[in-house]
């Protein structure tokens, strides 16, 4: 039986099989460390905001949206840098990311809309 996992399918045209040199490695590692510091900082900011600002504070809605933006930022860096999606072909990026922008956003919208309706019914009859 053939073991197709043994075959290198992703040979780039120059035949280097996705390898890179020591010098390239240094700059790649530098980028990784930068992203590490950024992700850590974002987490620290999130925890400080969450611990200091109470949910009944008047600026809470603003903080909530800040959390969402920071979460998307973190997720973006993990996917684009750590998972190397940023280095893939443009259309592979679209194939992977576009479903979320369509389905998840739609699902969030429809679920929250529906939940609001259900809550108003429950409140009315309780």
């Amino acid at each position, binding site marked *: 039986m*053939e*073991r*197709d*996992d*043994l*075959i*290198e*399918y*992703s*040979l780039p*045209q120059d035949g280097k*099989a*996705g*390898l*890179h*040199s*020591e010098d390239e*490695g240094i700059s*790649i*590692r530098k980028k*990784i460390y930068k992203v*590490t510091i950024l992700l*850590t900082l974002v*987490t*620290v900011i*999130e*925890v400080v*905001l*969450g*611990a200091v600002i*109470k*949910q009944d504070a008047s600026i809470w809605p603003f903080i*909530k949206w800040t*959390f969402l933006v920071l*979460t998307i930022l*973190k*997720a973006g860096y*993990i*996917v684009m840098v*750590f*998972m*190397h999606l940023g280095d*893939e*072909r443009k259309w*592979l990026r679209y194939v*992977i990311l576009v*479903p*979320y922008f369509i*389905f*998840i956003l739609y*699902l*969030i919208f429809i*679920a*929250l809309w*529906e*939940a*609001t309706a*259900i*809550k108003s019914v429950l409140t009315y009859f*309780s």
Partner: protein
Amino acid sequence: MAGHTAALDSKTLWGGEISPFSTSYGKLMMWFFLVSDALSFGGLLISYGFTRHDCLEAWPIGEETFNSMPFLGHGYPLLYVALMTFILIISSVTMVLAVEAGHRMDRKGVTNWMIATIIGGFFFVGSQGWEWYHFIHGSEFGKIELADGSVAIVKGHFGEIKNFTVTKPGNHHKEGDVIKEDLMHTFQHAAAAGHINNGIITLHDGSKASITKEKDHELTLIVKKSGKVNKASKAKRKITGVKAEKLYYEALYSGEANRVIYGANLKQNEYGPQQYAQFFFFITGFHGFHVFSGVIINIIICLGVVAGTYHKRGHYEMVEKTGLYWHFVDLVWVFVFTFFYLI
């Protein structure tokens, strides 16, 4: 078996002479798996949002629910989960460094970074175990139904129980016996079953005992469900000082069953609505299961690296593929962290 690799090059495999998206079959399939897995998690988190949005009861607040640290006790909001998040991010970094070392065919580098990743993964799974234990075990005060029918969670430092002194003998204990073992457990069981009346506890054998207990500190009631007197409105929900102490112990020592709930299970929990604990167990459990399987896969791949399997193959693509899965686990945690703990 060996020798196949040379015969099958990219030209014979793909009619277009390169693989789709210039990515290998394995990596592409891993991406497709991750897309579907991410949709599962998306569905779970959206249903969580749905339930939270239409819930009539007040939903628990992360910083009030999760404020314990190992060895330090209570009063450290979100610190522990921040540490868990940090551990997972760092293990993601060591994984991407392993992939980078693989691109340089640095076998020793790959081995070391993968071992670091596995250790980080075990730390995270262990932390989640502690978190679950604490969540199930609950606080020392529990959630209490006050005399007017309102329901409140309780914060503060529980004064230590010193002993029970038997005042009325039962089947086992004699009058004047001083009990010093298993106090907290007995106390909580009796309180939940309504076996404490006016500060007198009825023990398992039917004997009655008085409770010697140190004073609580900074006892605060946070009303979650309005009753006749105490309201869960933003301005009034916190009750402190002597009044809080009086209301709490009046309810705890009322002799009525089910006035207090300690910890969490699938039927009830001290933090909020029933669905809250169910979602907590399912979503963090499903994520924890992903982390655990990720660690196992990492160990298997690491053994392959040590054995030199991938080095002989000429590339470390297996490390890249398992790396994709590991980063995905980190990615999901970023969202779980936001929706369960922050918002």
